[in-house]
């Protein structure tokens, strides 16, 4: 196995239910202090994955997109702080959320659109990227709603690299 492969896991989700199951599998492994960063274009399923993570953390409340509130908090097995930076214009506004105080070492933090503030993210984090398949190239013009998503999970930082095998196992088992 190459070093590159060890640093990431790629699975294919065939439906929102699959995406949620993947989130649930990841959520079940999360511990206080963990940071999960979610990227992928609008409609890729970031919030669906987040709902799954909340399931895995034992959150019973319904998770909704925090786009307009910037941050939402949920109580589960571990406290979950769900942040969306999509409404922000400046990096300072992300710093102004005071995430290290808001979440700290006793909560799991989930950041949607984290790449926008990549330089301000902690070194240790789990990167989750949801990608839509490329447009069909057979040229017959027929439109088929495609629910397939490529889900890439990258392990950032030595602590996550050590947990890579456990994440890989649970993810490939879930989807």
């Amino acid at each position, binding site marked *: 196995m190459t070093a590159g492969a060890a640093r990431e896991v790629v699975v294919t989700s065939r439906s929102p239910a699959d995406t949620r199951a993947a989130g649930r599998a990841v959520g079940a492994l999360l511990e206080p202090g963990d940071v999960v960063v979610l990227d992928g*274009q609008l409609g890729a399923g970031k919030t669906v994955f987040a709902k799954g993570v909340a399931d895995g953390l034992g959150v019973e409340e319904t998770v909704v997109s925090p786009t307009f509130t910037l941050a939402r908090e949920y109580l589960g097995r571990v406290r979950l702080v769900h942040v969306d*930076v999509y409404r922000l214009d400046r990096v300072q506004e992300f710093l102004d959320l005071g995430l*290290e105080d808001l979440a*700290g070492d006793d909560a799991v933090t989930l950041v949607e*659109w984290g790449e926008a503030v990549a330089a301000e993210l902690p*070194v240790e984090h789990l990167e989750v990227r949801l*990608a839509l398949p490329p447009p069909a190239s057979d040229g017959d013009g027929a439109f088929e709603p495609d629910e397939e998503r490529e889900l890439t999970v990258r392990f950032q930082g030595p602590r996550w690299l050590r947990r890579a095998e456990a994440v890989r196992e649970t993810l490939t088992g879930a989807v």
Partner: protein
Amino acid sequence: MLLLAIDTATPFVSVALGDAGAVRCEVRLGTGRRHAEQLAPAIRYLCGECGVGLDQLAAVAVGTGPGLFTGLRVGVTTAKVMAQALRIPVVGIPSLDLVAWPLRSSRRMVVAVLDARRREVFHARYRPVPGGLQRDGDYTVGSPADLVGDLEAAGEDVLLAGDGVAAHAEAFARLEHAEHAGAEFAAPSAAALVELATRRVELEEFEPPWELAPMYLRASDAEIDWERVRAGAR
């Protein structure tokens, strides 16, 4: 002269009543990151137990950081609001100065180090001078490894103080010619805040409340490049 001193730059909530430059009463809560809930009740308890009414306060002093983001906002805002409502002066003193000040009798360079989270520390260096300490260089945020490297290169005997030292013990263990002042000197000192702020009030060196601001050191003017981010998401 009665002065109320507030420091919320670390996980501690610290409030003290100073009388003529010395601490008369002090309350310190170390439950961590509950500044917003605890600060006002701590002030009420402190003043109540000391039999001091808010109208007797001559000034309010606050540690301005660098330190915990939310803690600083709570502490500095409370100090500003009290100063304006009570029509008394407010004085801000950097929290790193408050870590270093109790060690002013050291003959070595004092390095104040506060944990900045995200594997970084806030730090500043001080040289003992007759009557106190003189800061040598800027207030800085950076990795403990960089700080250790700089101190190694300087090759001087140093005294390390502040919660950043224990939080990054591995990095600092490498450093020769260094002593750690210990847990007693981990947080900004309320006594130092009372003493330094009282001097400033006596010299009438205070700033308008609306100009007092926390020292974050991590300020970023950068705009988020959404075009790039959205392109990457495809």
